């Protein structure tokens, strides 16, 4: 059992997410940075997709009820185990009664804390991930609060104290991020000048950035081609008849601030999407802090598939390294 002394800003139980319910408005959820979740799990001998804690912008303070093997990966947060600094991307032995304090990230936004055996909350619709908007999954369908006691599963025994992730397999976070985008969906509705400025100008993550979506500001307003709006679409040129939203899709309500939908996405709505961030770059989005800069780069579907293969190869190397 792990007792939550302080919950941090937005800590929730996440695994790799659930598929198959998006058509009912239930999004995939799961770790926004799936790579970091996988790394933390493998370090403690878990299956790559075991449930762990996603800790956002301000980490929690946790007391361990029993001895445990833990590891954290992702955002670089200061971490103290009973006031002794402990390293990231390393399997650490924690003794019963010890307290782990995570602070705020220097770079990155989300840290994943895995415990050997995984966080043992019930599986709901095929996953332990929290979908807070729907009060579903995770720990009582919500973010953690002080006083919560998290059950831990049975460790595999494969994890080794001191195991660490080779530097070559660690992520580089921070700085200006390049996000690759396949234009499409309602991209043709943009004025050519707006399409050009979207890819040319730098954008900054706004304060409204969470598991549902990331809002960007700082670029020029994007104008849509004028048209007589189709029946049922609504009057603004950025409106469409409410449709499905792909995970990673970029919408621009009223042409003002682009929003990238992430794994807790609203599943549909009435704003034209102008393209989709490729799956290999979604982890990067989830690690962006407010005020961090990004540029969007136009790529083809083939580029997206090639990048995905690269990404999967890296995951496979990591899994092989830990014998998972």
């Amino acid at each position: 059992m792990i007792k939550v002394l302080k919950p941090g800003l937005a800590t929730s139980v996440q695994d790799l997410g659930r598929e198959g319910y998006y058509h009912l408005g239930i999004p995939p959820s799961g770790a926004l940075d799936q790579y970091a979740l996988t790394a933390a799990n493998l370090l403690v001998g878990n299956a790559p997709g075991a449930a762990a804690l996603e800790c956002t912008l301000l980490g929690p303070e946790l007391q361990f009820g029993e001895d445990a093997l833990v590891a954290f990966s992702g955002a670089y947060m200061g971490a103290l185990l009973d006031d002794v600094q402990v390293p990231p991307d390393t399997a650490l032995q924690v003794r019963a009664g010890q307290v782990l304090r995570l602070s705020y990230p220097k770079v990155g936004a989300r840290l994943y804390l895995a415990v050997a055996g995984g966080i043992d909350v019930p599986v709901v619709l095929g996953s332990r991930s929290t979908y807070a908007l729907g009060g579903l999954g995770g720990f009582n369908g919500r973010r953690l609060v002080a006083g919560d006691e998290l059950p831990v599963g049975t460790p595999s025994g494969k994890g080794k104290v001191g195991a660490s992730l080779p530097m070559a397999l660690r992520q580089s976070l921070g700085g200006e991020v390049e996000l690759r985008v396949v234009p499409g969906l309602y991209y043709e509705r943009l004025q050519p000048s707006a399409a050009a400025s979207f890819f040319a100008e730098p954008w900054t993550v706004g304060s409204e950035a969470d598991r549902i979506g990331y809002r960007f500001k700082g670029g020029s307003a994007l104008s849509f081609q004028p048209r007589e709006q189709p029946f049922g679409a609504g009057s603004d040129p950025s409106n469409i008849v409410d449709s499905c939203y792909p995970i990673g899709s970029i919408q621009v309500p009223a042409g003002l601030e682009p929003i990238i939908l992430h794994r807790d996405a609203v599943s549909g709505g009435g704003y034209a999407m102008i393209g989709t961030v490729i799956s290999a770059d979604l982890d990067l989005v989830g690690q962006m802090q407010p005020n961090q800069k990004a540029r969007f780069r136009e790529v083809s579907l083939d580029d997206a598939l090639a990048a995905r293969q690269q990404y999967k190869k890296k995951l496979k190397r990591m899994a092989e390294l830990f014998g998972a």
Partner: protein
Amino acid sequence: MNRPIRYSFGADEHLFAEVSESMSLEAFFVGMAITRALEKLELEGVLDICLANASFQVRFDPELIDPQTLLDVVKTVEVKAVAERSLHTRIIEIPVLYNDPWTHETLMRFRDRHQDPSATDLEYAARINGLADVEAFIAAHSGAPWFVSMVGFVAGLPFMFQMVERERQLQVPKYLRPRTDTPKLTLGHGGCFGCIYSVRGAGGYQMFGVTPAPIYDPQQTLEYLKAHMVFFRPGDIVQFKPIDRAAYDQAVAEVEAGTFDLRIRAVEFSLDAFLADPVNYPKTLQEVLA
């Protein structure tokens, strides 16, 4: 509806298909027929098939199914499926307390985000739809049944399209800026679509009333939610029934006691019969509930 379906990839995990730019029952029917036929194929690598009002989307794993292969399959299905003109479905009576105190309190709190701060959402909707008053608006809203044309936005939220000719479609804009709060089970309306907010949260639709009937519940307490925590499916037909405060309170007490149930009947819908007589055909559907 006089142009082909437009396909576009949402990067490497989604195939998006726009059946029609504008909303119509025919466009919805085409999307529904294609997505139902696709579901039956049980293609490996297809993670989710999402139907929207006049469009649909397939979420897939490109390691298991090549995007171009998927597109070819969908196009093949499209050719066969567009001929589907009838639907075996169910009609559900949803009780509604229109003009209720909770949405009223909420709409007053967000008046500065509304087109007409001096009127309520119902008064505004009645006026811009050319109806005499709120009573006339409620009569129109509950006078003809609605098709659930999409489930989503958030878990289990139904978008609905009323079964009337285009001239009689109720239309209202969304709030100028979205509200940060909407009571659970609020009846909303934006553009030509009605909805029921399945959970409390942000929203931009005009608010007309509340239903006591839960439509999403991860605990699955009520009988009609036992099969799935999400009640509505695209293709469901909904008939709203105005109720008074006493009936609402009674229903809420039944929900709390776990005894509340909905009136649900099987029904066959014919698109051609509707298009031939859009005034009288929906009445035959309402009679099934009687």
